[in-house]
């Protein structure tokens, strides 16, 4: 009972100090915003991609080429938003488009050759050229994809018209009316159905990861820095000379960090919701619970680092060593399944991986507790084991 009271006193003290330290408070609030806004805008998705400048060189002179240009010009990525996907600039030739890409005026382009209309009219296959901006793979990939889709769609439309012409021109020896044109030009089509309604975008994939990452790295550094700062300044001695249980010291500090972590998590979630239209499909309390558990799994590591490091600076450096690979290996930005085999193995010993996985499942797929119980258990075990190692080490190191 005494331990819990002491623990609470320590946590309260840490939070009070934190609230009064303006600089730390401001960084604490700005960091997740900064991170979120940065990632949200750097990685394009359908909410952020709009008015991408592309070039069109329409050398054809017929109706069909003009139709293609109109289709591209009026393309909207989302039917309920007024924004157009592209901002069109007109050029004379494919070389002019290439030059414009080089001078970074446009992010890609499409060239319609002079014989486009005549070739189609002569019932031959016409070709348009899509020009890529290879210096910006993120954007160019999306531009290519969208342009190719438009061309394919446009092409089958033209094909359908042609077949219709053929079918109506030939005397009806067979029951033409029962043959759909689409069954000839595209006999098989696919339709995509997700578990949740709507289009998932890259940001919905990234947002849970970023939230977990920000919160957990903040807790990890925060805890280690908080303990080693008190060690360095000598304030820890003031606590150590009192009859307070040492477990209460570390757990109190961990509690204050966890509270801060949850506040940060809430900020990230709010921003994702307000700025980038991310929705939480599952239970938000389950997300919070997983976040707490994720924090718990990191506390042992934080204590261990601060026990080993004598100075705040050493602690920060040591942690950086852990954090950097963790950013890439835990699947915050890239799915783990895309990594080489040995990296996947490393990814599976990082607790952040499980926390992100579970939070992503709940947030994006609306999973319930049963779907994340494996991750739940792994995080719990990881936390208990690292705590069981780090607390005795901390106790021993702290008595010089």
């Amino acid at each position, binding site marked *: 009972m005494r331990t819990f009271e002491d623990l609470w006193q320590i946590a309260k003290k840490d939070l009070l100090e934190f609230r009064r330290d303006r600089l730390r408070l401001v960084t604490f609030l700005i960091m997740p915003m900064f991170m979120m806004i940065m990632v949200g805008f750097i990685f394009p998705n359908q909410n952020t991609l709009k008015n991408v400048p592309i070039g069109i060189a329409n050398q054809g002179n017929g109706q069909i080429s003009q139709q293609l240009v109109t289709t591209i010009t009026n393309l909207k990525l989302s039917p309920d938003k007024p924004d157009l996907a592209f901002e069109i600039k007109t050029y004379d030739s494919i070389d002019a488009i290439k030059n414009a890409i080089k001078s970074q005026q446009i992010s890609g382009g499409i060239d319609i050759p002079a014989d486009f209309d005549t070739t189609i009219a002569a019932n031959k296959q016409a070709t348009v050229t899509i020009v890529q901006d290879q210096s910006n793979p993120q954007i160019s990939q999306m531009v290519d994809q969208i342009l190719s889709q438009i061309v394919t769609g446009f092409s089958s439309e033209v094909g359908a018209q042609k077949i219709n012409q053929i079918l109506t021109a030939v005397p009806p020896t067979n029951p033409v009316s029962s043959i759909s044109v689409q069954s000839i030009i595209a006999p098989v089509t696919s339709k995509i159905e997700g578990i949740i309604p709507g289009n998932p975008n890259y940001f919905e994939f990234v947002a849970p990861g970023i939230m977990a990452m920000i919160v957990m790295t903040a807790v990890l550094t925060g805890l280690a820095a908080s303990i080693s700062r008190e060690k360095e300044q*000598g304030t820890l*001695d003031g606590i150590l000379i*009192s009859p307070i249980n040492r477990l209460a010291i570390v757990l109190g500090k961990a509690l204050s960090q966890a509270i801060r972590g949850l506040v940060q998590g809430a900020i990230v979630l709010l921003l994702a919701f307000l700025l980038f239209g991310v929705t939480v499909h599952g239970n938000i309390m389950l997300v919070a619970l997983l976040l707490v558990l994720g924090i718990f799994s990191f506390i042992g590591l934080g204590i261990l680092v601060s026990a080993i490091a004598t100075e705040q600076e050493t602690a920060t450096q040591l942690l950086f060593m852990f954090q950097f690979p963790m950013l890439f290996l835990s699947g915050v930005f890239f799915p783990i399944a895309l990594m080489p085999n040995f990296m996947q193995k490393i990814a599976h010993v990082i607790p952040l991986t499980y926390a992100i996985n579970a939070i992503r499942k709940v947030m994006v797929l609306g999973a319930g507790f049963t779907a994340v119980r494996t991750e739940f258990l792994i995080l719990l075990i990881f936390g208990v084991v690292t705590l069981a190692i780090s607390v005795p080490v901390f106790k021993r190191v702290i008595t*010089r």
Partner: protein
Amino acid sequence: MKNVIEVKNLTKKYGSLVAVDKISFEVQKGEVFGLLGENGAGKTTTLEMIEGLRKPTKGEIKVLGHDVVHEVQSIKEKIGVQLQSSAYYDYLKLREILDLFGSFYEKHLEPDDLFKMVDLESKANQYIKNLSGGQKQRFSIIASLINDPEIVFLDEPTTGLDPIGRRNTWNIIAKIKEQGKTIILTTHYMEEAEILCDRVAIMEKGKIMTIGQPHKLIEKTKTPYKIEFVLAKEDPSFIDRLMKSCDAKDCDIKKLPGKTAHFEMNIKSQDLLNKAVEILQKENPESFTIGRATLEDLFIELTGKTIADEENGNA
């Protein structure tokens, strides 16, 4: 007298470095006990082992009858430790710091009474950075009293204070002693130890060189008497003459650093003192003082060093 602290064969090693080397001593209830020594002599390490902050390599420490290694929690309830004034939270008000520390103990005093004791009532809701050096020092003393301890540890309570601040602190220490508490302090100022301490222990390289009441220790020095004088001008032949008045093993003259023609003569016996005074009076010095050796003289004799030596790197 009842012993409140008993230290037996206490040793602390860091690898091959012996910080504290088999020391034994007792501290009695209600006394002011001083641990003297240079930086690195092992004073702070010794104190921290008694406080339970460091683990002894060997030896035994009993505080109020409890063993420090095994019953440290019950000891901690009854001791108070002054921390360096930098070791208090920047973003907590003084009262909040005392409330926080108080909450860790079963028994604790009212912060207001403590503020009153050292005239800090007006600063109770201020931050530590708004205090002067002397106020910080006073605060760090009352912080050590929050649990109404039986033994108070003060580590260099007057270092960095001006003469007024130092005298203030002496009065506070006297007040604590009047409450029947035992005080253990470390200091660099020998004159302070002579005034405050009932008993002192002088440490050097992890060992206790001597222990006892300051005035009794001084009597045991090789040269308990001394004359200090300033001549009108430097006069080597006169110094020679003065030196010849006694054997080299019984007295010692040295020029004090700095001021021109300022000397100190340490003398073994009353007879030799009288002889020297006679010779000196004839010379008509600008100023002269006859006195007793001080704790500082004893300290230098025991540790075999002067401040000048230390500065020359002979430490």
